[in-house]
């Protein structure tokens, strides 16, 4: 749906500000009640999901044009979807602020108003199939010495999509290597596309470059067909969200393969007895639900239809009936079940979790365009982690981990940040 096609939904916004908060039944105190990092950073209403929806409507209506300030509000946003979940609580998908924001960004791109930092990323993407501008040739460097199959050459049961972040962030190589070792130890038949792996396109889409998503989804569909694997596995929550939600919904793409995040898969392997924990990891942890693993990883079907006024009783309905992104079907229990299975680990929850999680701050191209926003948001989440008394903040997404680590370093915060794979591997490895 283009911005023009979303006019009805945009004008359904009632400016209630629910999108600034976590879903209201979950508010458990004064602190940690807010849901929208953008709003916390920018303060004006225009920074909220509803505010951006209103700006989008005003733009569509010809009331306003682009200004630096307006674009700053549009792009200082991690596209985390908290607004959407809170809005949908009572309005059942009538407004869908994040959908409006996605279309607003796309319109900005069409109008040549993309964020300059984003333009650069897209430039990289076009050149090297990753937004970091790193050479394609280096994509599989992380796996050196690990003896992993090339999924494009050999048939494997599991097609691992590593994702750009793990592929190029050297500091995170231990995590992705840990994932690979875990799979190997569990005897999983897997491979990845080595140097030929390409971006999932999700980040580009969220920055407003919708065609990139379509292009990458088509490429991946073709590759998967050729590879003939049964499972598409990703260690990156961002890719998880892209495959499960964006491809069907926004790229009209059905991958025709079971898509799993590594936490889901490991939970399965534990269940089958393929992974056994032999070592204590005495650690008090709290778990950060990555947006794209949870609410934005909720599988949603493509919908083409109309919103119309039912006559009796009068109310807006969708035809055919459309699924609403309530966030319930995200991956929430798998990482928790894994953590609970690791001997010695105690999990204490933060106030904002599951579908009402608070974003790390790095999504949607925000970290690249507005690093201070990302760090501020990351610090807020670290503060929340501290409130639980945890020694470590565990997550399951390289983007989140990177941002938390940066935020902690920048503010001298001693909180240790782990990817869940690191703990799993620690618990599997024999002592000494």
């Amino acid at each position, binding site marked *: 749906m283009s911005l023009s096609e979303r006019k009805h939904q945009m004008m*359904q916004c009632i400016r209630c500000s629910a999108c600034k908060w976590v879903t209201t039944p979950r508010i458990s105190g004064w602190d940690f009640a807010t849901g929208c990092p953008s709003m916390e950073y920018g303060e004006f209403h225009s920074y909220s999901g509803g505010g951006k929806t209103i700006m989008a409507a005003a733009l569509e209506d010809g009331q306003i044009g682009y200004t630096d300030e307006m674009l700053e509000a549009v792009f200082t946003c991690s596209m985390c979807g908290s607004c959407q979940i809170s809005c949908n609580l009572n309005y059942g998908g009538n407004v869908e602020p994040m959908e409006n924001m996605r279309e607003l960004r796309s319109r900005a791109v069409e109008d040549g108003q993309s964020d300059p930092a984003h333009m650069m990323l897209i430039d990289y993407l076009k050149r090297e199939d990753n937004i970091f501008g790193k050479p394609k040739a280096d994509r599989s460097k992380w796996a050196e010495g690990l003896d992993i199959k090339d999924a494009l050459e050999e048939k494997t049961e599991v097609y691992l999509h590593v994702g750009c972040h793990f592929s190029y962030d050297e500091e995170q190589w231990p995590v992705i290597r840990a994932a690979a070792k875990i799979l190997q130890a569990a005897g999983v038949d897997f491979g990845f596309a080595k140097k030929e792996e390409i971006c999932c396109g999700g980040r580009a889409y969220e920055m407003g470059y919708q065609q990139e998503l379509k292009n990458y989804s088509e490429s991946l569909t073709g590759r998967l067909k050729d590879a003939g694997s049964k499972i598409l596995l990703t260690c990156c929550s961002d890719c998880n969200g892209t495959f499960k939600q964006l491809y069907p919904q926004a790229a009209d793409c059905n991958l025709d393969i079971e898509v799993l995040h590594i936490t889901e898969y490991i939970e399965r392997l534990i269940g089958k007895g393929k992974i056994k924990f032999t070592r204590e990891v005495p650690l008090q942890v709290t778990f950060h639900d990555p947006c794209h693993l949870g609410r934005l990883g909720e599988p949603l079907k493509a919908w083409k239809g109309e919103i119309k006024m039912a006559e009796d009783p009068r109310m807006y309905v969708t035809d055919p009936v459309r699924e609403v992104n309530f966030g319930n079907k995200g991956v929430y229990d798998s990482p928790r079940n894994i953590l609970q299975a690791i001997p010695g680990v105690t999990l204490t929850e933060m106030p904002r979790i599951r579908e009402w999680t608070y974003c790390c701050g790095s999504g949607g191209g925000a970290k690249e365009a507005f690093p201070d926003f990302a760090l501020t948001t990351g610090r807020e989440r670290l503060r929340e982690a501290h409130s639980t008394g945890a020694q470590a903040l565990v997550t399951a997404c390289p983007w989140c981990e990177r941002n938390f680590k940066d935020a902690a370093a920048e503010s001298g915060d001693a909180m240790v940040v782990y990817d869940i794979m690191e703990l799993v591997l620690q618990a599997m490895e024999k002592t000494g």
Partner: protein
Amino acid sequence: MALSRDAYKALQAVVGSKYVSEDPGTLAGYHYSWGGPNGRWQPFVPLAVVLPEDTSQVQGVVRVCNRYKLRFKAHSTGFCSLAFPGVEDTIMVDLRRMNRIVEIDEKNMFAVIEPYAIAAQIQAEAMKRGLDCHIVSAGPTHSPLASATSVWGIGSKGLSQSWNERNLFGVEWVLPTGEVARLGSPGVGAGWFSGDGPGPGLRGIVRGTNGAYGGNGIFTRIGLKLYPWVGDERMECTGSQPQIGLKIPERMHFSLPYWKNWEDMTAAAYKIVDNNVAFSVLRVPPDCMNWMLTSTNDEYQEAFHKGSVPIDREEHLHAWQAIIAGHSEREFEYRKKVFEQIVKDTGGKFLQLTVEQNEILFAANVRISYIPRVFRPTGDFSTSFGMEESINLMGKLHRTGENLLGKYIGPGKLPDHGREGFWAWLNEGRSLHSENAFAVTEEPGVQAANMAYVMESCRVTNSEALGVQILPGYMGIFADSLGPANFNANEWMRKVKYEVVDPDNVADHFTYIFPEPVVLMPTE
């Protein structure tokens, strides 16, 4: 008019340059509102929006407005449909940075709050201390400070939590002249426990049944009365989004008794009050309950046509949703027993719902989430025929309202959601709050029918002697129509605004009282 550079700089000097904006995109969100007769875009775009951090900055902004002959309009969250500028040359004062719960005085049961501390936050903090915060139907995201000082403040837990005109304690008030008045005990530095005196209670010019919706200055801090809560310190959510319920705590009980007619339901109400057995009682139209019990309009439509909606428009028309609570097990058991006996004695029956449904409706009653969901069907709603008076008027009120609303329901007019839209509860057991809240669309025919209904309901309230009107209230354009029938209340409002509080009319008067009478329709 554009904002002069001098004025702009003066605002920047007060709040810091980051917190002033005159960007059209930013301003868009400050002249957009639901509930307007002309759709969402309201005609006056503010010249700028400012985000003050504290009372002295608010005062500074007001002084700048005085100096440069600008108007101002404050809002707390902006949810209320009257939070936009009603006149030209307005500086919008968005109070969201003033968001603290300054204090919760657990023993003396009150909170000291700033404008942008929302109800859900205050309630959650209060519950940790065995207390609860009165929440109006706007629901968990509204500002109780705005409600108590500037709007209405009526909510369905009124039986045990009164309403916010009465829950207001000490008040800090930046007058449109730029003075800061502290009413009641905070005025002499004695704490926030009282808003009346020394001597006369100036709360009486802060507000009446209605507040001034920003037309009399900016309230920056208040003491708000809290009420005992026997439930858990932290309510446990049940179900899943969006059908989230609350686990019904020990010593609390939710039920839905219904009667054959208004008279029996009224008799039960009196007995409930006299025996002091209920924590809250609420009547909402059956359709609204069904909206609450379904997650989307699509789901509701399907259930409606299958006949599987749990609450029947006819059979369950005369129903209270009741919560019983006891501080001790003994008290709880006694109250439950008496309550059940009352229902029996008055010919009522209990509607059996599933545990999940009970929990959802319990949550809707405790957290007050009915009204936010009333937006779901059509994206807008309206309210009218709202008054406060004797419980004995319930039958007459509902019948009169139903007949009246009936005339405006139909194709091209108001949607038919059960031919009536009555919400009612008992305030302190001393009066009945009753209003007709119903979904509307932005279609011109619907809006015309809505306006006509609102006007006629005002007339009928007076001609049928149904009590003092709260809704649509005295806001702005209605004041001079309603006032003459109420001993010229409009003229006293005018004096308060222009002689006492705001002689230069610096605070936007649009939703309060115009300098000269504006008569929309005679209501006598």
